[in-house]
């Protein structure tokens, strides 16, 4: 972690309390810096406003490997830290894929890949129709973009200029056949930024770099998975 913001230093300890997610741990940590910067500097949402109509929305589409997500939610006070000690236990509210009905602050249940972008487009449309100024952020992975449902959402949001939507693609080069030409080139009609997914200042600038007239995509590049 390269950060000067207070609170982030507690994340490693919180992550250590989340045991039993060995299968997914590399991807969990690929999202850690993006998630921290979102909740620490970008999203207008707090534990007190998780049901406020005008809150910013964060949708974790890439629901696998949610340890980093849970650690950040605990660090920011959305969930009790004690919940981290029983990941995916029979009475736990935190599973290997998050359930929005069980976890305060979690906007969607996810796990099956390719659902978050469509839900995010609908959320952005719903906020716009109701005159809310809130913004919708949705996090996917580069391999998740293999799923065709994403491309229905990407094309529609770009063509219609859905200006209150930001997609964050954490790119750890894990897509089996890759994205020759880069991930950002798939987002026609979107503004885009490609940044170092470990650089907090660069992430914060990119995550607030939308122009409001087009959807915005931030490609956060991290260490290749393989």
């Amino acid at each position, binding site marked *: 972690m390269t950060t000067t913001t207070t609170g982030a230093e507690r994340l490693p300890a919180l992550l250590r309390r989340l045991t039993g997610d060995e299968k997914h741990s590399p991807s969990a940590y690929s999202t850690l810096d993006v998630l921290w910067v979102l909740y620490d500097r970008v999203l207008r949402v707090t534990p007190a406003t998780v049901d406020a109509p005008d809150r910013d929305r964060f949708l974790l589409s890439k629901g696998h490997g949610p340890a980093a997500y849970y650690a950040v939610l605990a660090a920011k006070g959305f969930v009790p830290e004690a919940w981290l000690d029983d990941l995916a236990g029979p009475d736990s509210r935190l599973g290997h894929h998050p359930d*929005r009905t069980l976890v305060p602050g979690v906007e969607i249940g996810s796990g*099956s890949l390719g659902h978050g972008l469509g839900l995010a487009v609908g959320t952005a449309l*719903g906020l716009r*129709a*109701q005159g809310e100024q809130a913004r919708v952020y949705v996090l996917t992975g580069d391999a998740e973009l293999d799923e065709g*449902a994403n491309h229905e959402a990407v094309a529609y949001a770009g063509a219609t200029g859905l200006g209150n939507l930001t997609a964050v693609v954490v790119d750890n080069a894990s897509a089996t056949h890759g994205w020759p030409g880069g991930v950002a080139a798939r987002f026609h009609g979107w503004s885009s930024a490609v940044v170092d997914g470990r650089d907090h200042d660069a992430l914060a600038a990119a995550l607030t770099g939308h122009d409001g007239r087009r959807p915005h995509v931030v490609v956060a590049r991290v260490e290749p998975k393989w």
Partner: protein
Amino acid sequence: MTGMREAFVDTASGLLAGDPRTALVLADISADAFLPAQRRHPERVLNVGIREQLMVGVAGGLALTGMRPIVHSYAPFVIDRAYEQIKLDLGHQDAGAVLVSIGASYDAASAGYTHMSPGDVALLDTLDGWTVHVPGHRDEVAGLLRAAAAGDDRVYIRLSTLENRAAHAPRGLTVVRGGGRALVVAVGPMLDPVLAATAGLDVTVAYTATPRPLDTAALRALAGTDVVLVEPYLAGTSSRLVAEALADRPHRLLALGVGRAELRRYGSPKDHARWHGLDAAGLRASISGWL
């Protein structure tokens, strides 16, 4: 007004004008019919193009912001194609929507099997919390849609070009003709063929346009030991519910509906009704033989 689809367009357009919570999500199908409503409410009439997965995903997102989405397409595209979005983007999110289909079973017979969804109700039966309406007449559509739009739950309204001559109470199980030897349950547009098929037979004919939740209390009260189900979708779809309702009673059940076999034939809906044994002659042969 010329049919169920037009009744839907009129009613949905009225709901969009009257309630700012209402949104309509389309995937090109019927987009022309909703152009006037789209001009009036461009932010709540959303045609996403030929993208049915997105159509249902968008509905889930709209519902999460407190809106009431009405989703509309051909049955095979809104149900079969978008099944996982129905399961996850609505059900798993604990979000509601009103799905309204056209092209019931073999309405689009001449278009072939790609445009048929005899299994739509059976697919929704794999999921929790769905109300299913199968109106049998255009005049049943408006009330069902308005009530569905006023709620927050998950509702499927299955429109058809096949209709009964008259509208009936679309909820519960209503006796249309009394008799003694058996209870014949006709769902939606199956009522008129059933009435014709059972003319002169000593059976009770009951109608419902709401097979989910099936009115099992009325079923128990009306049924003796012999029950015939006549459904305009996959045969046997409601057999499980009849069996559960009559679990404490020795009974016989004949479940008629659309067959599983792909006929690989075009023709008209009338032809397909005949081939599936769902015209009056076919139903009479099945029912009288079984009695």
